[in-house]
């Protein structure tokens, strides 16, 4: 009985965090960032100038592509072809900073688990730069 009471108390403590997860398909829940009843999966990748995957959530690889400078392929551990991709040029770590630059994103051709990222200077020239990528599903 004591344990039942304790578990009920614990459930009450955890209820606010779990409320959005009821009756939902499995997924990583970020309840604080969306309306209740919505499962939001957020995957990330932080990629160096050379295309090395530095860290991430669900990311399994990154590499420069054969298309030339400033083009990268990032692959995740699941199908993300129905997700939204957002990327920002930025240092992977805490030393230095990047000059003005922009990114574009699109699903990786022929790979439903991949994202194709380009990094460009303000003049529109493709150039290798590190970036942070967020995939929201």
């Amino acid at each position: 009985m004591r344990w039942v009471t304790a578990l009920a108390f614990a459930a009450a403590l955890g209820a606010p965090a779990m409320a959005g997860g009821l009756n939902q398909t499995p997924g990583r829940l970020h309840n604080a960032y969306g309306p209740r009843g919505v499962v939001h999966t957020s995957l990330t990748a932080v990629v160096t100038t050379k295309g090395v995957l530095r860290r991430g959530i669900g990311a399994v690889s990154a590499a420069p592509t054969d298309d030339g400078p400033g083009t990268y392929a990032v692959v995740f551990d699941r199908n993300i072809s129905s997700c939204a991709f957002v990327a920002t040029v930025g240092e992977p770590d805490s030393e230095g900073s990047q000059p003005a630059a922009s990114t574009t994103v699109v699903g990786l051709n022929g790979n439903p688990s991949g994202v194709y990222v380009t990094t460009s200077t303000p003049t529109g020239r493709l150039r290798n730069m590190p970036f942070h990528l967020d995939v929201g599903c």
Partner: protein
Amino acid sequence: MRTAILLLCACFATAASAAPLSGWAVISPDGEIVRSSHAVGASNNGSGIYIIEFARAVQHCAFTAALGDEAGQTPAGYVTVAAAFQDPTGVYVTTFDAGGAMVNRGFHLNVRC
């Protein structure tokens, strides 16, 4: 029963403090927090240079940002990100105009851990 409750409370507290922190912030051009989740401070440290402080370490997270203010239209420009130097809870954000010059701009920052 007290022991059981205390143990469970301790487990929850430990899980909460160890859990990676995701958050976000909307920052005005002068470096003030317009609204946020888990951001505890922001500063404008020079033209187009901002440091946003979060409640827990974020240096191993991914940061994405876009220019944008609380209201009105933001001129075209660029934004880049990095972990703040020797500051595990900080994100270093730089903002630029369309020509690549560092200028103050409002922005929206997302931190995923």
